C-alpha cells in the first residue's frame, strides 16, 4: 500500500519558518481535506511534498511508498506518483501542451507511447474536461483564462495517472459548471486507480463534491485539529474562531499583528522611551 507519511516537518521560505513540526499520514484511496486561514502553511506543505526549490525543509521527514521523498529531485517525485495541481500554473510559451504531455508520459514508460494512442487519449481527456479542441496545439497555459489553467491541471492529472494527487485551490477561478466537471473527473479517476488526494480549498461546496473522509486544520504551521467532514461544515458556517478558542492557538497572520505598531502621528522616540521606563 502506498502511503504518504510526514513526521515533524519544518519548512522555511526565505529564512522564515512556515511549517513548525507537522505530522500527517495519507493512505491509499483516502481523500484528505486541508483547511486553515490564509498564510498558515497549506500551500507550503504541498510545495514541500512536491519539492519546490524555494521551500527549504529544515527538519523532519516525508516518505512516500517507503521512499524518502526529500532525497529525490522534483521530477523523480513525479515519476514516483506524486502530482501537484498548482494554485498558479506557469505559462510556458513555445512549448505545446501535447509535446509537454507526451514527454511527461514517456518518462514513466519503457517504450514511448505511440502517437496514435497518445492523440486518442488526449482527445478523450480534453473532451472529458470540456475544453476547446485546439488545447493540444496551444502553448502550455499561455494566454489561458484562470479557469482554463485550472482545468488544464486536471487534464495533466488524468493523462499522468498519479497515485497521490494534491490540489492547491483547484476550485478558485472555476465557475460552478466547471467545478462539477473537475470534481467528476477526480472522482472517476479515484474509482479507476485508487489514487489518494490531498485537497486544499476554502469552500465546503468543493468538499461536498469530492467527499473527503478526513479534514485537517492547519494553523500557524501545525495541524491543530483532525477529524471527519463535520469539521469542514462547521468551519463553513462559523469560521475559524471556535478553533482558536477551543485549542488556544493564534493564526500566523494574527500572531504577526501583535508586533508593536506605530500609527502616523505617533512619536517613535517617545513610544520607545515609554517602553523603556516601563521596564
Amino acid at each position, binding site marked *: 500500500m502506498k502511503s504518504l507519511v510526514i513526521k515533524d516537518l519544518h519548512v522555511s521560505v526565505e529564512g522564515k519558518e512556515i511549517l513548525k513540526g507537522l505530522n500527517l499520514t495519507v493512505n491509499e484511496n483516502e481523500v484528505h481535506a486541508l483547511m486553515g486561514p490564509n498564510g498558515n502553511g497549506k500551500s507550503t506543505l504541498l510545495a514541500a511534498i512536491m519539492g*519546490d526549490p524555494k521551500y527549504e525543509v529544515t527538519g523532519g521527514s516525508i516518505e512516500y511508498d517507503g521512499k524518502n521523498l526529500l532525497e529525490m529531485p522534483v*521530477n523523480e517525485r513525479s515519476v514516483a506518483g506524486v502530482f501537484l495541481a498548482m494554485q498558479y*500554473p506557469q505559462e510556458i510559451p*513555445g512549448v505545446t501542451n501535447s509535446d*509537454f504531455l507526451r514527454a*511527461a508520459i514517456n*518518462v514513466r514508460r519503457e517504450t514511448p507511447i505511440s502517437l496514435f494512442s497518445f492523440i486518442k487519449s488526449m482527445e478523450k481527456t480534453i473532451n472529458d474536461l470540456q475544453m476547446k479542441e485546439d488545447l493540444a496545439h496551444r502553448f502550455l497555459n499561455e494566454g489561458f483564462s484562470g479557469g482554463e489553467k485550472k482545468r488544464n491541471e486536471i487534464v495533466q492529472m488524468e493523462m499522468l495517472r498519479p497515485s497521490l494527487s494534491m490540489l492547491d485551490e483547484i476550485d478558485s477561478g472555476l465557475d460552478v459548471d466547471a467545478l462539477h466537471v473537475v470534481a467528476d473527473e477526480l472522482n472517476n479517476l479515484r474509482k479507476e486507480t485508487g489514487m489518494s488526494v490531498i485537497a486544499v480549498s476554502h469552500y465546503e461546496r468543493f468538499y461536498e463534491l469530492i467527499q473527503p473522509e478526513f479534514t485537517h486544520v492547519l494553523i500557524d504551521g501545525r495541524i491543530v485539529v483532525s477529524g471527519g467532514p463535520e469539521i469542514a461544515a462547521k468551519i463553513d458556517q462559523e469560521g475559524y474562531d471556535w478553533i482558536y478558542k477551543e485549542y488556544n492557538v493564534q493564526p500566523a497572520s494574527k500572531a504577526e499583528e501583535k508586533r508593536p505598531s506605530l500609527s502616523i502621528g505617533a512619536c517613535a522616540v517617545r513610544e520607545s522611551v515609554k517602553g523603556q521606563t516601563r521596564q
Partner: protein
Amino acid sequence: MIPIHVNQDFLPDEGYTAYEIDSERNLDLSFRFEKDCDVFIRLVRAKNVRIRMFVNEGVRVGILLWNNSEEKTVMDETYEVMKDADLVVAYGECNNAETKRNTYVALRGNHAHALVSSASLVSVRKDYHIDVVNFAPHTYGDMKNYAVVLKDGTLMIDAVGKIVKGAKRSESHQTSRALCFEDGQKSTILPELLIDENDVQASHAMSIGRMDEDQLYYMMSRGLTLAQCTSLIATGYLMPITDTLPNEELKASLKQEMERKIEELCSM
C-alpha cells in the same frame, strides 16, 4: 545532393537544390541566382569559407545554411541583391563547434528585399557580425537573430542596419533575442542602426533573458528532467525562425535538423 569539395562557381537551376560542403581546405565559392531558387547548404566540414552570392533582378531566393561542422568554421559571406529581387537567408547554428561569421548584404537596386535570420543553440563560442546595407531607394532589410545559450556558451552578435544617403523610403529592421540557462554565461548583442537618409523607417528590438526557475519547477513537477525541459524550451524558442523560410522543404529541413540537434546537445 551536390557535394562541394573544391572552389566552384554555381548557377543553380530553378526550384530546390541541396549542397553539401565537405572539404579539408579553405573554400571560395560563388552562386549566381538567375531563376527563383530554394537552396539548402549543409556544411559538414571546412575551415575558412568565402561565399559570394548574386541575386539577379526580380529573382526570389531562399537559402538555408545549416552548420553541422564539428570543428571551428570561419565564414565570410557577401550577398548582392539587385532590383526587385527577394532574398531570405536563414542560418541554423546548433552544432557544438565554434563559428565566426561575417555577413554582408547589399541591397543594390530599387525594391530589393532581404531577410537574414539565425537560430543558434550556443554551447561554445558563436560570433556573428551582420551588415545589411540599403544602397537604393525603396529597399527593405530585416534581421532576426534568436539564440539559446547553454552552459559554457558565449554569444556575440553585432548587427548593423545601414541606410545610405539617397536610399529614400527604405526600411531597416532587426530583432534579436537570447535566452540563457545558467549563471556565468556571456551574451552580447549590439544592435546598430546607421541612417544617412531622412525619409526612412528603421527599428530594432532586443531581449536577453534568463530561464525562469518557476517555469522549470513546473515542468519538472510533471516528471521531465532538466535536460528535457531545456530541450523543449529551446525548441520552442528557436522554432519561429523556420517561418522565415519561404519554401516548405527548407522549413521542414530546418525543423527536423534543429529538433535532432537540440535533443542531442541538451542531453549532454
